[in-house]
């Protein structure tokens, strides 16, 4: 068992661009779920809208990358409005079902053969990130990072820097918003909607604003996800993507500005640690775990089995996550 490789590669994932993308998605969910108590189970849909707007603008219509990014964020905001209008007046679980359904609608439509010429069907789109890659100041060099501990390819390092910079910006925005009077209204909506309404606040409007802001951050996550892969396809935005983002949020602690940041580093470190560990344990001619019990295909599932189990246990025994405050978060609101 090569422990150095396992730790090094797990750290590479934990700090890497994928972790940063999920951090962005989880920050959006934090605004929805952590601060406002909105159950958005369709964050993948917001990500898909953002990512595909950029990819199809550049790869299909030959328009500018920056224009595409702007349209992607706008599209995420419009999606939030579309989903919010019918559901924000209803019980929390209706929003959950509508958002999960909407995300699935978006994924199936953009992956369809009918729209193949615009969105590339199941194969998705490539070659839309030239203007972004062109800005890469590290291009041409070798691997970047701390040699012997953790290193990345130049393009990965560039996306990683940009992603974490955006994460920092979003954290700052969320921190500023949530200490404002506006943020206090959001938190009180989460605690007791009726009380807030009786004080004369327009709860519906506040929820809508929260949905739009979190959705736009989700759209940003989708754009960065597409850039990080240099490609986009519908499988990036499956229902499980949303559930991963929820796990990231809940690990770190909802309703905490840095909850998603801590959560994503821990989550991706552990997920890749388990993957590498079981991968090595089942590899080779004489694996540590007999192949009758577990083969390499099954080994790749172990991390998800652990993930599902830890999501359950976390929610049951420590719903505030690692850094959250139990008093802060009343999850009993219905």
């Amino acid at each position, binding site marked *: 068992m090569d422990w150095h490789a396992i730790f090094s590669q797990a750290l590479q994932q934990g700090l890497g661009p994928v972790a940063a993308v999920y951090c962005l998605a989880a920050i959006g969910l934090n605004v929805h779920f952590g601060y406002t108590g909105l159950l958005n189970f369709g964050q993948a849909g917001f990500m898909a809208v953002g990512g595909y707007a950029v990819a199809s603008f550049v790869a299909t219509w030959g328009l500018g990358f920056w224009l595409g990014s702007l349209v992607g964020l706008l599209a995420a905001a419009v999606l939030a409005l579309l989903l919010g*209008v019918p559901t924000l007046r209803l019980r929390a*679980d209706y929003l959950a079902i509508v958002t*999960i*359904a909407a995300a699935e609608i978006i994924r*199936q439509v953009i992956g*369809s053969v009918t729209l193949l010429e615009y969105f590339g069907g199941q194969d998705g789109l490539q070659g839309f990130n030239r203007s972004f890659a062109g800005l890469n100041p590290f291009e041409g060099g070798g691997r970047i990072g701390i040699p012997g501990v953790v290193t990345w390819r130049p393009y990965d390092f560039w996306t990683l820097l940009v992603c974490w910079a955006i994460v920092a910006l979003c954290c700052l925005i969320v921190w500023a918003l949530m200490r404002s009077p506006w943020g206090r209204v959001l938190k009180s909506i989460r605690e007791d909607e009726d009380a807030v309404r009786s004080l004369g606040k327009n709860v519906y409007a506040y929820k809508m604003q929260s949905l739009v802001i979190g959705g736009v951050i989700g759209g940003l996550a989708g754009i960065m996800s597409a850039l990080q892969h240099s490609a986009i396809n519908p499988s990036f935005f499956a229902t*499980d993507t949303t559930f991963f983002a929820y796990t990231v949020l809940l690990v770190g602690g909802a309703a905490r500005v840095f909850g998603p940041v801590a959560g994503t580093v821990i989550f991706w470190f552990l997920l890749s640690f388990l993957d590498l560990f079981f991968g090595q344990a089942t590899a080779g001619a004489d694996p540590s775990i007999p192949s009758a019990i577990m083969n390499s295909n099954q080994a790749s599932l172990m991390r998800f089995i652990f993930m599902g189990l830890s999501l359950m246990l976390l*929610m*049951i025994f420590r719903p505030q996550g690692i850094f959250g405050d139990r008093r802060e978060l009343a999850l009993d609101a219905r």
Partner: protein
Amino acid sequence: MHARPRSISAWITVMLGVAVSVLVMTGSGSASAAPVPLAGSQTCQKPAPRTDDTIHIQGCLSDSREKPPAAVPGVDISVEDESGKEVGSGTSNESGVFDIPLPGASIDNLGQTFTVKIDKETLPEGAALRNPKQVSLAVTIKLDSDVFVTFPIGDATGGGAGKATQALQLAVGGLVFSLLLAMAALGLSMIFGTTGLTNFAHGELITFGALVAYGVDALPGTIRIGGTNVTIAVAVLAATVLSAAFGWVNDRALWRPLRHRGTGLIAMMVVSIGLSIFLRNIFQYVAGASTHQYSQFSSPRPWSWGPVLVTPKDVFVVLFSTVVLVLVVIALQRTKLGKATRAVADNTALSAATGINVDRVVTVVWIVGAMLAGLSGVLLGMTQGFDYQIGFKILLLVFAATVLGGLGTAWGAIVGALIIGLFVEVSTLIIPAELKFVGALVVLIIVLLIRPQGLLGRAERVG
């Protein structure tokens, strides 16, 4: 499950009865077997991978009227380049596969566009392209790997027959699907009604049933009673019993302790997501990622009932699930336990105060709900095959059916499922088949916009 006037339950029973009789009535026509291409041969066996530097255009022709799709051999395919010159041709083999090499090294063909044409004359009798106009496909070579093209093949009547016949044929499929959906939705709705839990792991209860039956089916040898092979009946029985036990375990080990310690409904919803991910991956661990068929459940030739084709399997599924649904509905309506269930759904605190053992009722609801879900899983597996995430794939449709009828109303779940199931299939007349689930989900959102309490739900406004 709010207490509904008896007229509605009667209406449901009548509706189910009508559904069955429609199916039976359409069967009064001729009983001649439809032309069926070679069944049994292995479909779509991919050619062995090569190492040479050429690009091949490959594809597989399968007749989608069969389940699983049957191979269509002996069809001529030709490839033309941009100037219209034929550069290659081939014929589909016994497993329906054709493999046409392009001339020249792969680098020469990059960026070129080729036209792949199918010779309609060589299709077997009775089969035709599902899209009769699509006799050629333009393929642009982008990567130096083989290109896979497909020509959907189905009914010869597809283009010629009236829309009415097509709609009728689709409605038969829709009816079968909607009854399966109804069983799953009824379970989900009962659990929601009595405990308030939106169970995202309900799809895994469906898959569980399909997997148990697969386990029995895959046992060596066959189970016989009096010379008849009853393996599949035993499999259905085992799936029913073990699913019920699985529901009991779910409630006892997880949900009841959570209810007793006062865990919030949203927290429980997230727990159910964790459970869903956990179980789904365990299922994949055990059963693998491939799609399975029940080997000992042969697929007899479909009967041609008038203009529509009906398989004996469809008839069995419709009759069986109708009986099950009617039994559950009657039990809810007439038995003491059923009345207690509806009372708990209506007002848990009040029913506890009147001496109803709420925990016992909820346990029974979990057992029955999981049993229904497991049964729908087995029957779904029989009609279209299954994999480790079959339940997860249709979970949103189950939700759609439940919400459409009204979350927590038993009758609503059945009505919702009938509408969703029929809509999913019949809508393919107009929209592409790949988007049929999308249509149902759009209906779900529109219904929430207009009538959030669902068709049969009780109006309840929050905010």
